[in-house]
């Protein structure tokens, strides 16, 4: 079928749209509705637009396209929804509809999307090459020099803000820190695969190393192939479902799900997408069954450790920690208590509850890049809550959240350690 003439929303089983009975119980948990009090910016309002398209009462329009990208995709509405609406699926379909209809097309946007979503993140070699260049730039002190020089002032304000958000690239990518096979420390009880991710691999490869370390100390032999693929969540969440399917097939080819007790993800956003390959590949008879098995084997690291039981760690310094929930870990994967229990298992660690801990921090994938104003408001709100806890450490389990909070703390001049829960556990072994 011709991509441009396809209507994702009309082709979708109507019962998915109809599941919403517009009771309004999603309103108070939706960050964009809370900020604007305008129905269009609520889950119920967005679904009404999707339904209007499915029923031929509305054509995909610029306003529709913009609305779908104003949604954070945080899925807090799914936790609140008694009717069980699959908003995640509707949201992906609606963004795909917006892309297929072309209402959002502009030369700059087309170029950025072609480069980032359809080229760069489709192949991790390209991403690592870019990461390598960026690392060199940072290591040679050129970034610092440029920032000191004042030349950045010549850039438009938005580009200046984006430049300031450039993450620090780690000295080594995951393959430089993790052996292809890491034996279990002590008796081997499980054989698991470790997904190192894309952004995570460049910016937080140390978290991947800590994850493997913790797994090994809990009786797991860990298989970590040096060359991996992006999970496809970036593509799926940005209206490129076909590219997401290509990447899902590559993952399944690389990690045959029947060969492992579990396939481990340590990034909330990726994990949430990785667990839905069966839906994504439902129309692919070659992959459908393996995708179903894949979904069963895919485990978030906190979930897996809770399942197999955490070997008690030895020593850790006294520390006060608060926990910010990644939306796609809490709402997408419903993993809420496991990270808290993991943190509570660390000796001398005092866990202080964060007010609104499951409210989005504004990172939301690439949301902070495309919707800086709303993302900034959410970041402010989050930082205020973090400061109210008095904790000097905030733990969170998603690279987007980690980056967002690191940048936020830097802007505010806070001495706040932003860390993955698994790193704190690894430090305690």
């Amino acid at each position, binding site marked *: 079928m011709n991509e441009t003439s396809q209507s994702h929303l009309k082709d979708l089983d109507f019962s998915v749209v109809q599941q919403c009975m517009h009771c309004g119980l999603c*309103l108070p948990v939706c960050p964009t509705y809370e900020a604007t*009090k305008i129905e269009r910016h609520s889950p119920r309002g967005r679904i009404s637009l999707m339904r209007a398209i499915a029923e031929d009462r509305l054509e995909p329009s610029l306003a529709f396209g913009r609305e779908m990208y104003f949604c954070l995709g945080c899925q807090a509405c799914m936790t609140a*929804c*008694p009717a*069980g609406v699959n908003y995640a699926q509707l949201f992906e379909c609606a963004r795909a509809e917006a892309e297929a209809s072309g209402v959002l097309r502009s030369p700059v946007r087309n170029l950025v999307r072609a480069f980032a979503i359809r080229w760069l993140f489709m192949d991790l070699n390209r991403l690592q090459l870019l990461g390598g260049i960026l690392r060199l730039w940072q290591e040679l002190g050129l970034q610092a020099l440029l920032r000191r020089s004042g030349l950045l002032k010549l850039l438009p304000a938005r580009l200046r803000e984006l430049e300031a958000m450039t993450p620090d690239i780690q000295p080594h990518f995951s393959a430089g820190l993790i052996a292809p096979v890491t034996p279990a420390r002590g008796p081997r009880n499980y054989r698991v695969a470790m997904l190192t991710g894309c952004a995570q691999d460049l910016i937080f490869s140390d978290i991947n190393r800590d994850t493997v370390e913790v797994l090994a100390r809990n009786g797991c032999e860990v298989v970590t192939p040096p060359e991996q693929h992006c999970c496809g969540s970036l593509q799926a969440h940005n209206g490129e479902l076909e590219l997401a399917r290509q990447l899902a097939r590559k993952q399944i080819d690389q990690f045959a799900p029947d060969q492992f007790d579990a396939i481990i993800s340590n990034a909330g956003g990726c994990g949430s997408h990785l667990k839905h390959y069966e839906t994504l590949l439902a129309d692919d008879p070659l992959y459908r069954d393996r995708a179903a098995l894949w979904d069963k084997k895919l485990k978030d690291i906190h979930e897996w450790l809770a399942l197999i039981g955490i070997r008690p760690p030895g020593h850790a310094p006294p520390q006060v920690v608060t926990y910010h929930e990644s939306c796609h870990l809490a709402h997408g994967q419903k993993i809420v208590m496991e990270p808290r229990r993991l943190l509570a298992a660390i000796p001398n660690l005092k866990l202080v509850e964060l007010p609104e801990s499951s409210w989005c921090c504004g990172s939301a994938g690439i949301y902070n890049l495309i919707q800086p104003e709303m993302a900034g408001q959410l970041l402010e709100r989050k930082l205020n809550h973090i400061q109210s806890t008095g904790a000097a450490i905030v733990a969170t389990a998603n690279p987007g959240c980690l980056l967002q909070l690191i940048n936020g703390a830097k802007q505010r001049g806070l001495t706040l350690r932003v860390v993955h829960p698994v790193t704190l556990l690894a430090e305690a072994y």
Partner: protein
Amino acid sequence: MNNHQGHAPSLDPALRLSHAGSMALAASIVSELRRLIGPGNVLTEKEDLIAYSFDATAALQQMPGCVALAATTEQVASVLKLAQETRTAIVTRGSGTGLSGGSLPSPDCVVLCLVKMAKLIELDRANLTLLAEAGITTAEVADAAAAAGLFYPPDPGSMKSSTLGGNVAENSGGLRGLKYGVTRNYVLGLEVVLADGEVLWTGNKCVKDVAGYSLRDLFVGSEGTLGVITKVLLRLIPKPPAKSTLVATFARMDQAAQTVSDIIAARIIPCTLEFLDRTTIRCVEDFARVGLPLDCEALLLMETDGHPAAVAEEASRMAELARMNSATRVLVAKDDAEANNLASARRSAFSALARVAPTTILEDATVPRSELAGMIRFIAAVAAKYRLRIGTFGHMGDGNLHPTFLTNERDAGEMRRVEEAFKEIFDEAIRLGGTITGEHGIGVSKKSFLPKFAGSAQVRVMRELRRALDPKGILNPGKMFD
């Protein structure tokens, strides 16, 4: 493809969806609205109008002409003056959680949305009152009261989203009606903008006040047809020092009903006596995962509150009565958190039922408590007669039932059977001395049943009252009665 026109039950032709989506509202009115309340607060894009074209009532939709988000009483007054001069229909709404189509737009009306008027103005600890703007949510009121050691009992199922103004306009109930009554019992005063834009205050902080007609009571439950409620003065009560929450399960529905009768006969007035049938229990547990037993036909959620000694005695008496009626088990919530989880789970019942059917249409026929067991049997028989799937839950303690048909609005034949079934249920409720709506209001859903229920004298007085307060018929036209 089916469209919305074919399956809107009990909806008169004037309210049916205009497919053209034409903007019949004059451009001059829209530009004047923009001048009055700010351009950003007047929404006219089709994408906005669609999002305000419904409330929480199933299968009803109507495009408005525009949406006006007012921020102050003065703005509301100016909008109403304009509407009066131009004979423009005004449909007031809060969060749009109503279940009778009360805030469904009328064709090309101005939807006047008050959610931006959400300030808590005063919590008076000396007089135990709370003054707030109409757009504050019910949950925010309840939380503010609780934080001061006080209690605001009305707790409609939608309380996390629903607004106080909407609760007053619909006289909402909730799970605690049996002991604590409904919204009306807590309204001490109101600020209302009249149809011509004049602002009226009625009521005050005094418990006793018999100066003139109680206009305050007239506006409670007026469904947006007599004026626009902009501020509410509420009576709060001391927070009961103790409570105990029990869950009892039964193999047959009539055992649960008999338990309720026995509890009342034993002179116990618990604050909550809720029941769920098998279908509802499954849906609620599927969503809330609070550990409801799935192997029973009926479940009673019972709560008593008050002095600790009285609570302990009443709880044990209720457990005993449940066992005497062959309860398969009686469980006691171990703490407040578990009790609150059970109550929240119960509040989600209506929405949770949507898990098993595309369209859920619920009603709130209410009968005197003594007729409850018979009414429940009657509803089951009607569902069987019309070959309809049904989930029933509700407030057993106050006779307010929520039979919910699990259907599909795209199945025109089934929707007709639903309408027929409801007619029989309402007729039976009236025959038993009950009412066609306990807490959801007339709106458009029950408009056709009001004349028979209320009788010609009442309808005449209602009509004259409405004409006196809204002579040009601009406030929520087409709702309640014509």
